[in-house]
């Protein structure tokens, strides 16, 4: 490891603010990039499944 304390890691000789803000924003964007399609797919499956059950429920009422 290049740095000898946590303080040094955070400060990075005065460049800490720049380096860490760049990394934090990047992590947020990358996580969003993966989380967005995941949520969208789960929501779609749930909605389609729900519509399907309602459809089947309605169908049973008719046949009964």
């Amino acid at each position, binding site marked *: *490891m*290049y*740095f000898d304390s946590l303080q040094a*890691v955070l400060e*990075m*000789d*005065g*460049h*800490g603010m*720049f*380096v860490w*803000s*760049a*990394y934090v*924003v*990047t992590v947020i*964007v*990358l996580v*969003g*990039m*993966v989380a*967005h*399609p*995941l949520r*969208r*797919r*789960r929501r*779609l*499956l*749930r909605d*389609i*499944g729900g519509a*399907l*059950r309602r459809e089947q429920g309605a169908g049973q009422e008719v046949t009964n």
Partner: protein
Amino acid sequence: MWSFFHKLGSPPWLYGIAGSILRYLLPVTVIALVVGAVWGLLFTAPDFRQGNSYRIIYIHVPAAVVALAGYYVMAAAGAVSLIWRMKMADVAMKAAAPIGAALTFVALFTGSVWGKPTWGTWWVWDARITSMLVLLFLYLGVVALYEAFDNKEAASKACAVLSLVGMVNIPIIYKSVDWWYSLHQPASIKFTGESTIDSSMLYPLLLMITAFYCLFACAMLMNMRAELLEREAKTGWVRKLAAEGAH
């Protein structure tokens, strides 16, 4: 060979194979990103001229490289969808656009934050930076154009044309640091001739570039899977999947 193309045009097959690839690729990608970032942030020596601010290179360069590569993917998918009317190519083009936009944004943002301690300014209307900003607008243009049309086919055609016309920008981005006097430094990694970067810095950088490529692939496959479900919502295979509650 033809049966492969036939399968490629089959939504349930594509959905399934994308899921199988993701099961392995996504964990590997996350590990590679974490290892690469920790390596670059904590285990490399600072640059002798820029000090520690140079550590932004481990996200800036991979994001920029993959943002550019992603444009080829999007434009190629656009060409296939335009010429052969292949529906899956359209799904691929629509999946690539928001990821490209996100990565271009990351490249611009990290570049800006790197510019402040290095050049003394957050932003400069430099050829490289301006052409990357145009790339961001091209990606966002494709995303917006999809939303602007009610007719799916017209939307796909317009987006394919826009992404192909936008290809003009790609060589400009590559060559911008050589053609114009620029604040942005020229490429440090060269395929021909010796790279002007020390190998202790090169290895974590190469790892991060590879990881970003994998992340692009993962996000694109995930976008395609969601898009396939939406487009095929009325078909038997999607209904079966939804009824099973499979994820």
